[in-house]
């Protein structure tokens, strides 16, 4: 197998993801604004928000229990840990085995689970509503994600993301199999759901009836809310990174600084493409009713299943 990734590189990549997460969000927001012929906020706006949040004090609901304060911490930790599993700069498995795609999805699921718990804690109707909807969507998204992962893993014979992208090698869209196209299509369908964007969720509104993820954050405030927001930024870029690792080649295998820079550039480009896609989708579609979402995800499911079938048959 190619390109062992030393542990410090893994940590570096993780830190990179955490730092770049808000930037992606800012970029998407800016692009949306442009597409809607608005000026829009600066790309770095998310950083400003975070900085402000971390400087604020905390207001906690009277009914909240002891768990409430630690929820944001755990959520953030789980999400960032997931970030450690995505290959960013170089392909190939890490020097010391850490986790694979299943572990990544597991950590994201853990974060989501804890968020839902936190939403219940305050005891308002909105938190419960948000949690209910989130936990309705999630079980439908996860299997499809897994199937996409399987569809590539069956070919590569591993579920370790680094190894997967290494196996993908320098191959390019040209020699994709039909299965890859279908899998990628499924992934594109899932992306908005996983990143909490239109048409599944609307990150901008706090109108009770439309929001999923935001509803769970209602009772969080100050640094806690900051952690949650940072976590959602990270979650977004981690998901994009997952797609990249699964479907786009990692350009560089060398160990030199130059290779790393090339890899970084390539990664940035890939993320940029996906971000643009998200922005386009979000500004050209309307949000779906909750009970339409399963049908929407159904498209992804069918694509993924077909992709698997093509792999196996």
């Amino acid at each position, binding site marked *: 197998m190619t390109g062992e990734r030393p542990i410090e590189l893994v940590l570096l990549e993780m830190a990179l993801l955490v730092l770049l997460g808000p930037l992606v969000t800012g970029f998407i927001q800016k692009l949306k604004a442009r597409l809607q012929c608005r000026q829009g906020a600066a790309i770095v706006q998310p950083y400003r928000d975070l900085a402000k949040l971390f*400087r604020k*004090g905390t207001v906690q*609901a*009277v*009914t909240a*229990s*002891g768990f409430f*304060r630690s929820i*944001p*911490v755990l959520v*953030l*930790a*789980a999400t*960032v*840990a997931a970030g*450690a599993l995505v290959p960013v700069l170089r392909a190939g498995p890490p020097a010391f*085995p*850490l*986790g*694979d795609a*299943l*572990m990544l999805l*597991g950590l994201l*699921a*853990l974060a989501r*689970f804890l968020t*839902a*718990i936190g939403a*219940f804690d305050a*005891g*308002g*109707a909105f938190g*419960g*509503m948000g*949690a*209910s909807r989130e*936990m*309705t969507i999630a*079980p*439908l998204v*996860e*299997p499809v994600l897994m*199937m996409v992962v*399987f569809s590539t*893993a*069956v*070919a590569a*014979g*591993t*579920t*370790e993301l680094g190894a997967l992208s290494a196996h993908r090698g320098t191959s390019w869209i040209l020699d994709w199999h039909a299965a890859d196209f279908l899998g990628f299509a499924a992934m594109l369908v899932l992306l908005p759901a996983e990143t909490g964007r239109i048409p599944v969720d609307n990150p901008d509104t706090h109108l009770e009836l439309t929001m999923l993820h935001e509803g769970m954050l209602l*009772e969080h405030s*100050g*640094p*806690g809310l*900051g952690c949650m927001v940072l976590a959602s930024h990270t979650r977004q870029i981690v998901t994009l990174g997952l797609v990249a690792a699964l479907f786009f080649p990692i350009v560089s295998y060398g160990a030199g600084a130059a290779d790393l820079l090339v890899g970084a550039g390539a990664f940035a480009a890939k993320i940029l493409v996906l971000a643009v896609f998200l922005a386009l989708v979000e500004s050209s579609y309307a949000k779906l009713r909750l009970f339409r979402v399963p049908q929407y995800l159904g498209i992804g499911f069918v694509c993924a*299943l077909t992709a*698997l079938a093509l792999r*196996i*048959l």
Partner: protein
Amino acid sequence: MTGTLLMAACYGAGGLSSLLARWSGRLALGVGHLAALVGAVAGLGVSLGVLVGDQGRTLTLPLPELFPFARLTLAVDGLSAFFLLVISLVVIAAAIYGPAYLRAHSPGAGPARQAAQVLALNVFLGCMAFVCCAGDALTFLLCWEGMTLASYVLVVAGDRDGENARAGLLYMVMTHGGTALLLVAFLALTERAGAFDFAALRAAAGGLDGMTRTTLFFLALGGFATKAGVIPLHVWLPRAHPAAPSHVSALMSGVMLKVAIYGILRFAFDLLAPVAAPLPFSWGWTVLVAGTISAVLGVLYALQQHDLKRLLAFHSVENIGIILIGVGLAMILWRREDVGGALATVALTAALLHTVNHAAFKGLLFLAAGSVLCRTHVRNMEELGGLARRMPWTAGLFLLGAVAISALPPLNGFVSEWLTFQALLGAASRFHGPAGLVIVFSAAMLALTGGLAAACFAKAFGVTFLGRARTPHAEHATEVPPSMIAGMVWLAALCVALGVAPGYLMHLLDAPTTGLLHGPGASAVVTAQGPLVLSTALTASGTDATAISMTMVAALLIALTAMAWVLRRGLRRAPPRTAPTWTCGMSPTARFDYTATAFAKPLRFVFAALYRPRRAVIRETAGTPYVFQRIHYSGEVVDLAETQIYHRVQRGITVLSRTIRLRSTGRIHGYIGFVLAALFVALLLFGVGQR
């Protein structure tokens, strides 16, 4: 050897201690559970002795000659030892937890009831332990039925209401039917072998032809599946388990079902396995598909339950399904070198690992639910809420169990499901064509199961422990006594240990895996890169191993948590203020909290085709139809298997019997006529023309 005897002696003593109830029920409870505890420790010793000791070693202990036609023996090999280990681990917790629970839950219980409970409990434990240690068919059957009978007593002895009796009846009847199948399977072997001990049965099975072999296997599978609660044979489970005292529920759900798994493994890989040939395809595929269906439907039904213990019981159906997926894969792959290789070991390891994991977290969850129950006397979670502040220990431990059962890292549930996934993927990459599709589909279903389980436990934990107390029951709850907490902590520690450092258990799995598969042991395959790393080889060539390290991930999580905690403290040290929850400006009450029904409603819509939900809305309007005085909503989700199969069969039999009974006129002429007719027909049938 001595350990086995000690175990028997302890359970026996525990049973006898029920006599103490004559003087003091409290004393009887204490002594009985203490004896059970010692017995469990002895069992632990025995099993570890076999598992850690040299491979392939088997303890055998002939019992006194009781029946002229069969000699009772005990034989503890790797597989038995492993299940004995699982049993003992949970029994320890239950024994610590039990006395305080029984006293707290039903203070008014008479000594007779307590005596019955202690006696039944110890008989139950002893029989469970010895089913796994049985060395011959008769011992197996006797202990098997003893186990059923004792647990039946525990179910019906709980409370004196008819509900328990009905649950017990259903339980008893279904398992009895299962035992009938087992009887046939066993006796068919014993009559060929001319003896009852397993060695002879093995030898006799060697000469079977394929058809008979498969028939016997499916008979046995039916029997065990009934006990394991595999859909559609599960209907007794969600009724019987909640009816028992909670620590007994923990044992029934966490351990007793596993004994059925033990039976399946014993039959498939040991007794009926052909000599040096792979198992027939039909076996593995049946088990795999049945497991998948049980997993998905089990969790789907669990989602719609509002009775805490019932919900947990349905999750047992789900987890048994997950275990069976692993078992089925192992059956499919075993001895098929072209596809199998070491993968059969991975599958079996996954199944066994999930067995012990499920025992740990399901036991923990049932004990925590029991703590809630004995403080609030309410099982319906809609009437609970806000317990986290009143029972912090119970809440925390329940949360831990919830994370574990939802297969979320870094706890143990994730490990076994990860292994199962790896086995599934490996099999999928080997089998091409429809077979591979089935495998992949069950992998997807397994993923769906995980997600739904997370949703279900978010609901269970959130509605039960968080938010406001909805009823006085919940308001006046207090934390349970330390002994009960200790019992739960023991299992919680198991969950964490198995989750963070699973590699160290693999050595204990060597004996059963090698013993059954005659191949490489679990540790050789799964922890090839050292105990900290779990790795599997997906391709037949063994290259491209996928490797994860639960330990590393856990460490990373802890480090990140510490860092995040610093962040969370904020840059400015402002003391946190408290304010009422925001509810659009209204003053919030408990009625604002999201109920379990509401939480599960979207999923009920999504899976309406499976649920067939029934809902009834009754509107009481004042004079005009536009003014509602009260709206009463009632909805329920019916168990398809129950309504479609069981009720119809039962109704059919009853109606038939009624009609037959009504036909009988009590006139003596009819009686005489029957005698005469019988003679006439008999003479014509047997008498005439045979010379």
